[in-house]
């Protein structure tokens, strides 16, 4: 058995002779991988600000209080339009408030010559 052990140790020693061998093309591929990984990392590190800057809609959404704020705003707008178009009975007609209709003619007693006389 000792003889076999010695043989085995010799075989292990022979295998160890090849232990530090790395085929050239394999070394080149490993190095190419390493450089590719470094390049990707370098590219991602040079543009983190651009990647992190929020877009216009994102900024607007934040300014308005997120999706809850935008939802509330939209509801308020819709309610305003509806009230404008079909106001409840207890509210005055907004159109009338802006352009009041009157049966009285303010200029009924004035003639064109009176108006000209006032200006003159």
């Amino acid at each position: 058995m000792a003889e076999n052990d010695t043989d085995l140790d010799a075989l292990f020693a022979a295998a160890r002779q090849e232990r530090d061998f790395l085929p050239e093309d394999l070394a080149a591929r490993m190095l190419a991988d390493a450089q590719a990984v470094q390049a990707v990392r370098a590219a991602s590190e040079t543009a983190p600000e651009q990647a992190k800057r929020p877009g216009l809609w994102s900024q607007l959404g934040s300014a308005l209080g997120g999706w809850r704020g935008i939802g509330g705003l939209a509801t308020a707008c819709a309610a305003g339009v509806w009230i404008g178009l079909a106001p409840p009975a207890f509210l005055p007609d907004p159109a009338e408030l802006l352009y009041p209709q009157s049966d009285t003619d303010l200029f009924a007693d004035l003639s064109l010559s009176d108006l000209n006389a006032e200006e003159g």
Partner: protein
Amino acid sequence: MGDPGDDALLVLFANGDGQAARDLTGRLGPRAYSVALRVLGNRAEAEDVAQEAMMRLWQMAPDWQPGRAKVSTWLYRVTLNLCLDLKRRRRTEDLDAVPEPQDDSLSAPERLQEAARIDALQAALMQLPERQRQAVILRHIEELSNPEIAGIMDISVEAVESLTARGKRALAKALAGRRTELGYDDG
């Protein structure tokens, strides 16, 4: 000033140092290739596994925490896991039936006795159960300590000792009939 350790090289690599990439390839590439070659017994597959193991090293470099483990230990473990994955895939594809060296395996064109001996050892290694083969390769070819092998294989030191002892006995038995052929009976 001594050479920087693997830890330091990995940090340099993560910071974009090209020389660190070359140094790590020179130091650790052969380790991954050697183990994969002995475990798989096939050069082409060993090259694929070693390249993938190194790729994982490059990718994990920024997350490496120096001092927590040896880089080489991590690499051996990844390499062995990749070997196991490959063998499982092979088994699924039903191509794992031939343990002898294949077309592009270890047979050298010039059959020097040294090469013949290495081939004989490889053929005997391929007959060992997977864990025994791994332990024997790490102990007797990579010359790692038992505690380090235990860390790599995630088993106890006693289990490593048992695996290597049984593996050596099985190898000696497998090679016993080939002493003359391998030039050990000449004298």
